[in-house]
């Protein structure tokens, strides 16, 4: 019989996540009595900032919400506003938006896999230690991340808070010569991305089967990025306009992020949820690499998220190459826009999962109300649920350092973008 000790673990600043969060864990009599993922980063009020601003300002304003996934914010916003105005931006804009989004998945996933997640699984404190023994993998990761940044830069002028996106399309079209250079690099990166999938699938991941609900977009033909219906693994299938009928957000005292639920239950968004629900939409080349590596879907092991990210890196390289290989500069990189009053919705797949926007605009195209639901707040209740199950399955008899590390590993596995900051951990243990 293991010791029924009381444990109190306080992780005041979570390391290797994007944002300021903390973990509080209390164990009494061999059971978890209290578990909180505290997000204490100050509220940011972006929805209020947008009120009264013209629709033209929205893409550049929302890009400021996140330094890692600005493209996702821009994409959800422009789709929502175009829905209000009744605009179809046309096939060229549609394809190039997908390419730009591929750039963001590529850079965000590559960063997370190599710099934030893999050190956990390989037993290192940081990527610097890991690079000594896994130099080739880290170099490959940095190359893929850099390629993603350059794809974003191609359309956005810069990779952090890009500025090229507008309602109706892009302010300017990339030069054919720049595109040719990137096509060559994408072609060279394709085998690298395949090798990454094999490497990620070979990581010594914990076995931890759990019951959870996956939620993602689903498109009639392609792996979802900018469009689709909202679907879940327990049967939801609705338009993005009906999001508020099924999903609720509520405040909890310990967090400045809202907790989301689907029909009253936590749910998962992000790469593993997307892959669980959309693996039949992967291009053959991407799916066959994944299958060769032994990933069976749908997966109930949350730690397969890192493999799902690698598969999506492969997909992003493949898709960007496919779409840029036939690049032709357009006569005009945007369609003309006439403001129109109304309400519109945009929902796209940010690297970390669903990013849902709702805008109410007046006749001049000024924002009357905005609502933005980011992926990490949707995952927050799910992360807490996972922590309870994972830590009890791991064994609460483990010492505090081991419990803390497992807890951090579980949290980091979601790649939470609490909003942009953070590093390491301190721990306080109270024993009776």
């Amino acid at each position, binding site marked *: 019989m293991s010791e029924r000790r009381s444990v109190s673990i306080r992780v005041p600043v979570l390391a290797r996540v994007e944002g300021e969060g903390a973990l509080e864990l209390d164990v009494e009599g061999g059971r978890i009595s209290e578990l909180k993922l505290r997000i204490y980063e100050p509220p940011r009020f972006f929805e209020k900032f947008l009120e009264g601003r013209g629709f033209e300002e929205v893409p550049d304003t929302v890009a400021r919400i996140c330094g890692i996934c600005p493209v996702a914010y821009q994409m959800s916003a422009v789709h929502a506003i175009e829905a209000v105005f009744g605009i179809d931006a046309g096939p060229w804009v549609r394809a190039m938006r997908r390419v730009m989004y591929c750039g963001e998945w590529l850079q965000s996933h590559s960063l997370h896999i190599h710099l934030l997640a893999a050190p956990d699984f390989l037993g290192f404190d940081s990527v610097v230690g890991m690079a000594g023994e896994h130099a080739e993998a880290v170099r490959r990761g*940095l190359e893929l991340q850099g390629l993603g940044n350059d794809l974003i830069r191609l359309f956005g002028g810069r990779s952090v808070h890009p500025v090229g996106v507008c309602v109706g399309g892009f302010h300017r079209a990339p030069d054919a010569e720049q595109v040719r250079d990137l096509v060559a690099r994408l072609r060279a990166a394709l085998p690298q991305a395949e090798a990454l999938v094999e490497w990620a699938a070979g990581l010594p991941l914990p076995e931890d089967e759990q019951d959870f609900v996956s939620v993602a977009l689903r498109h009639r033909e392609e792996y979802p990025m900018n469009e689709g219906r909202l679907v879940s693994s327990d049967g939801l299938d609705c338009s993005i306009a009906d999001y508020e009928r099924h999903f609720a957000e509520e405040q909890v005292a310990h967090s400045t992020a809202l907790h989301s639920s689907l029909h009253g239950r936590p749910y998962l968004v992000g790469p593993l949820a997307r892959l669980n629900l959309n693996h039949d939409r992967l291009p053959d080349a991407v799916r066959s690499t994944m299958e060769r590596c032994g990933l069976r879907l749908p997966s109930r092991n949350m730690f397969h998220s890192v493999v799902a990210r690698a598969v999506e890196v492969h997909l992003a390289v493949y898709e960007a190459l496919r779409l840029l290989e036939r690049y032709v500069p357009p006569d005009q990189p945007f369609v003309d826009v006439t403001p129109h009053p109304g309400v519109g919705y945009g929902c796209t797949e940010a690297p970390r999962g669903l990013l849902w926007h709702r805008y109410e605009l007046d006749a001049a195209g000024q924002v009357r109300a905005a609502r933005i639901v980011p992926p990490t707040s949707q995952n927050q209740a799910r992360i807490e649920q996972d922590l309870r199950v994972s830590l009890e399955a791991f064994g609460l008899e483990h010492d505090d350092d081991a419990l803390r590390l497992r807890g951090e590993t579980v949290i980091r596995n979601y790649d939470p973008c609490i909003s942009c900051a*953070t590093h390491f951990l301190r721990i306080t243990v109270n024993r009776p």
Partner: protein
Amino acid sequence: MSAQVSTVRVIGIGSPFGADCIGWQVVEALQDRLDERGGPNPDVLDVQAVIADRPGVDVLRLMQGVRWAILVDAVVARDETPTGDDGAIARWPRWLQRDELQALSLEHSSHAVGVSEALALGEVLGQLPDRLSILGIGVEPDADAPAYAGAVEEGVAMILAALSAPRVEGRSEAALTT
């Protein structure tokens, strides 16, 4: 151009916010001086000035293919006092050693990877240029505060002096070439 032209890349690191943009301002002012041919002999030294917005590990790519890179970045530091106590907030441009940068980098720095970590990674991967110089410019910790008057001019003058008399700022590379 002769084959002996050696490339130096001067990289201003920062963001548009407050004094964090000082690295960009120095590099932009340096570019102006180079355009006026106020810099070193272009037949000998090809000086490329670039700015980077919070590059994280991308700083390694920015240094690729050059033998000498000069990083210019805002730092928050306190001057030492004879008693060893913390002194006033530093207001200087100074050539820094790598280990000094590590001590100066904020423990809670955002986005997981700062310049110091990126350079540590670059060292392990063997991706640093032969010669690396780091010019730190001491600024207020308050994100909204602008850099002190004269910071840009002092920073540009130090870089131009280093370009004209290479290896003067050797302290920083001594730490690297061990």
